[in-house]
């Protein structure tokens, strides 16, 4: 009897420990307290950018001048699972990367209202003041997470678009004579033609269209029809602009239209047959090889693959975002006005011994001097200043930015990603980052890109997208908190499960049985408690309309 218990328990423990092996980071060397407060922080990082190496020069400068050191733990795999394991064990590092309200709901974070005040942290306070109410946790009105991106000083001048689009290789457009692409049909026509002409790229077979549907990234597969239909980034729902009713579109006619198109393209051999069984690393490595002609995705997901293409000098294999729709009568709404993400950024965990010290660290790092170091680098080493005080980089300084190894030694992008930061312009008028400095952006383009943009008569990659209209007050709906364990949450999870099960079938099935599979898919969706999900979304959208005006 005992033996059995032991085996059963050992087996379940083994299963849990197998997935949480890396969860036990954060040995707390509550370092020297001489400078007042904690100096060594353990950090959980979810960013996909390159990890800083041990001999990183910015980390060294921070340690030398401020005394701060970091013990970073990077996310591998699914964020929700990792967060769940951390919550189950109550085992949090000092600083936690949040992507949603999960940690807040679990009571894992310290409310920051008492720490961020005009007296104690003037810079940080000024940074979040305007959005304080919006960022506070709805249930108790406290602020838990310091927002990471989307708070702009001055105007948005970045040259690189990070959002959703149908991406296409520059070579495909160049080969077709730099056409304007407006519709889904035109998009696939270009890809088909190019693939027919170039069955292999760099010795490996060409993949026409790639799809990511791996765990945690199912939305890459499911949200595309929404954009093609001219809706903004509202996640799984379409929001009626007049009544603010939210409605799922998974079983809509336009979703069907999109998957029908993919089904046809699959039959033509345009879509990667392994698309649905690959994980995200395999997806990234396929894109990095330059053999993928196009995909629908948000740029930040595959950005590392693009950096890799640049470091291989495969400029023509980089991608251009296209705001395509089903037909030309539909106005695209891909690019939006910058919005600050709710619940995304660093939070301070209840295990942190000295939250005050962490907030002070953020306060120091958001000062303009440190922001310049974090975003531009060291003056004279990573960038230059001309007589008018404008920042610029020499060609060598630009080129080293393409080297991922150099970046891991000289930038701290992974850590920086969730830090509160200045975007737009500094008080001296310089762009917050090299990408936001228009003349630097232009100068940093390689010859291929310069020529490419000239052919299209555009200044930067943003210009390929639609002009962003004013965002609706509630926008975006995708970050609405569904409350863990609620009916809405279950309905949403089941909807995702159905999508990952049926959509691949729909796409890969022969044309004759498409309608049957679609019927099954819709039938299964009807059995879910979609009403609960839609109600939660609608209620929250209305709540936002009332409280965010």
């Amino acid at each position: 009897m005992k033996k059995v218990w032991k085996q059963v328990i050992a087996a379940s423990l083994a299963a849990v420990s197998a997935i949480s092996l890396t969860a036990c980071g954060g040995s707390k060397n509550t370092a020297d307290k001489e400078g007042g407060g904690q100096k060594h922080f353990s950090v959980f990082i979810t960013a996909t950018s390159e990890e800083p190496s041990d001999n990183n020069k910015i980390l060294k400068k921070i340690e030398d001048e401020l005394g701060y050191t970091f013990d970073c733990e990077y996310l591998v795999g699914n964020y929700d699972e990792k967060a769940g394991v951390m919550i189950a064990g109550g085992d949090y590092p000092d600083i936690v990367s949040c992507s949603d309200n999960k940690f807040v709901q679990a009571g894992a974070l310290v409310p920051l209202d008492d720490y961020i005040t005009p007296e104690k942290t003037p810079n940080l306070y000024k940074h979040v003041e305007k959005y304080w109410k919006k960022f506070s946790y709805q249930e108790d009105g406290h602020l838990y997470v310091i927002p990471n991106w989307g708070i702009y000083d001055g105007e948005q001048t970045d040259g690189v678009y990070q959002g959703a689009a149908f991406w296409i290789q520059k070579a495909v457009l160049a080969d077709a004579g730099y056409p304007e692409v407006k519709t889904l049909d035109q998009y696939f026509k270009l890809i088909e033609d190019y693939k027919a002409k170039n069955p292999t790229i760099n010795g490996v077979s060409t993949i026409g269209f790639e799809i990511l549907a791996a765990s945690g990234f199912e939305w890459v597969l499911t949200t595309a029809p929404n954009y093609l239909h001219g809706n903004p980034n509202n996640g799984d729902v379409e929001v009626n602009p007049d009544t603010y009713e939210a409605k799922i579109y998974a079983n809509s006619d336009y979703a069907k239209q999109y998957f029908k198109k993919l089904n046809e393209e699959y039959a033509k051999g345009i879509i990667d047959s392994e698309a649905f069984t690959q994980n995200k690393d395999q997806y990234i490595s396929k894109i990095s090889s330059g053999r993928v002609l196009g995909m629908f995705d948000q740029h930040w997901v595959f950005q590392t693959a693009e950096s890799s293409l640049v470091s291989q000098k495969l400029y023509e294999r980089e991608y251009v975002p296209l705001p395509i729709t089903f037909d030309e009568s539909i106005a695209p709404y891909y690019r939006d006005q910058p919005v600050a993400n709710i619940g995304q950024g660093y939070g301070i965990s209840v295990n942190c011994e000295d939250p005050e010290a962490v907030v002070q660290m953020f306060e120091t790092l958001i000062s303009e001097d440190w922001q310049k170091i974090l975003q531009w680098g060291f003056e004279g080493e990573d960038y230059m200043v001309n007589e008018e005080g404008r920042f610029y980089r020499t060609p060598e300084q630009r080129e080293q930015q393409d080297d991922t190894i150099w970046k891991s030694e000289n930038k701290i992008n992974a850590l920086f990603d969730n830090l509160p930061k200045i975007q737009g312009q500094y008080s001296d008028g310089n762009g917050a980052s090299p990408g936001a400095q228009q003349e630097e952006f232009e100068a940093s383009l390689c010859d291929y890109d310069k020529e490419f943009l000239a052919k299209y008569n555009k200044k930067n990659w943003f210009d390929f997208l639609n002009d962003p209209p004013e965002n609706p007050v509630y926008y975006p709906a995708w970050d609405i908190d569904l409350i863990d364990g609620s009916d809405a949450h279950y309905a949403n999870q089941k909807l995702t499960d159905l999508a990952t099960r049926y959509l691949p079938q729909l796409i890969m099935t022969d044309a004759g049985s498409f309608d049957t599979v679609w019927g099954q898919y819709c039938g299964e969706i009807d059995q879910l408690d979609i009403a609960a999900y839609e109600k939660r979304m609608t209620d929250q959208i209305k709540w936002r309309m009332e409280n965010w005006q």
Partner: protein
Amino acid sequence: MQLKTKKKAAVSLNKKTFWQRCCEQKVLILMSVPLVLLKILFAYVPLVGWSMAFQNYKPAKGLFDQQWVGLDKFKFLFSDNVFLHDIRNTLAMSVINLVLGFVTAIILAILLNELKNMFFKRSIQTISYMPHFLSWIIVVGIVQNVLSTDSGIVNDLLLRFGIINSPVNFLGEPKYFWGIVGAANVWKEVGWNTIIYLASMSSIDPSLYEAAAVDGAGRFSKMIHVTLPAIKGTIVILLIMNIGHILDAGFEVQYLLGSGPVQDVSETIDIFVLKYGMQMNDYSLGTAAGIFKSVISIILVFSANWLSGKLGEERLI
């Protein structure tokens, strides 16, 4: 009357001897106390956590400040199609693994046992048990490469021999999934599993083989009539032990190899626990599924044990 006293005396004598025996063995008993305590601490105390299954557990609060919901979580579990599928998948893959694991290991062990060239035998043995030391993540990587539609060796061979016209997407087709998991398991574990059978074969009295040879038994007859019966006890014991694990169809291989299109056949109970317990923060539901699994495992072990006793074989407990 006389008889009664006699009986009483016997009882008291027995009782006395029990306590006496305890006294005699008090050192041994003392020595075992720490181990028993350890067992209680690590095997029984955590069972308090099972109460989570009857609550609507929310992390930030203590275990006993929770809202009690009775059997709600179990009701949800058994009304959920996904969970029922997961039970089916777990059982199916487990039985496949069990049968394949046993048959292949026994066959390989018998074949190895017949080898006379020691160098060759040792090499085969080493090569065949090496994969056991690879972690699943590596094995899954190899499986994915081998079965890839894009220059995977299996598709490549099938195409060259003209058996298929276009590459088969093995990992995206639900019908192949169980087979792939079974084959991967065999590849990884077959060599390792033979060790215990080989050990048991080495203890067979050579005179049995000689006697069989005198009776005119050939090689195959010897395998069937001497080797197999001699290791029958080992086989049965291993079978009973493995039946306790029948709901542990594995977690890593299905988790790593599974994907959207095959989720209907790839998800096991362990993955369900991970998905609902961890990913969706419904720790109560995860615990309920875990309890179900443990209870079934215990029932299975006892039935196997009882059956084995009935069949006149050795019993584990």
